[in-house]
């Protein structure tokens, strides 16, 4: 499923809404999550999952081809942990 298919689906479930508004709703949800992560905040959506940002320390890496040491700066990685309900639903009939 792509973002446009998701928008299409929400639009079908809500025929009273303008397609343009459904687009804004879906975009706003992911924009809010992105903005929260960019502030370093955590986003917790019970049953679905939680997004957080993990910090990776600066380190000395190595160019695998030349063996030269290179400085790798500190970086931040977005991380998602699946919620309990979704995890269980994905494994219901296995």
């Amino acid at each position: 499923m792509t973002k446009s298919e998701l928008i299409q689906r929400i639009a079908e479930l809500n025929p009273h809404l303008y397609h343009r508004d459904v687009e804004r709703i879906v975009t706003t949800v992911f924009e809010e999550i992105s903005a929260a992560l960019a502030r370093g905040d955590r986003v917790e959506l019970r049953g679905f999952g939680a997004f957080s940002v993990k910090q990776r320390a600066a380190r000395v890496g190595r160019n695998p081809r030349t063996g030269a040491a290179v400085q790798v700066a500190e970086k931040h990685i977005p991380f998602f942990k699946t919620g309990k309900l979704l995890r269980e639903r994905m494994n219901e009939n296995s």
Partner: protein
Amino acid sequence: MAARTVTRADLSEAVYQEVGLSRNESADLVESVLNEISDALVRGEMVKLSSFGSFAVRQKGERVGRNPKTGEEVPILPRRVLVFRASHVLKNRINSALSRSNG
């Protein structure tokens, strides 16, 4: 700046501010977005949200695990797990925002 936790209520509020539907309907729509994504994943579909990231379902085979407390061997059954890969757009946004604020 202490990190806070953003919840459904914050997402609903943002939709309410942005689109101008009632607070109740905004909350229902946020729920509906999460439900549609969940349903697709439960069906085993991949969900790709451009400029945000993608969720993929991965099948894990059975393996032998160990209870870390007792050392006892226990089988870990085959299962499906969800992996999220953030898009480059999101990764870059987070890194440029957070490295700037840290110094």
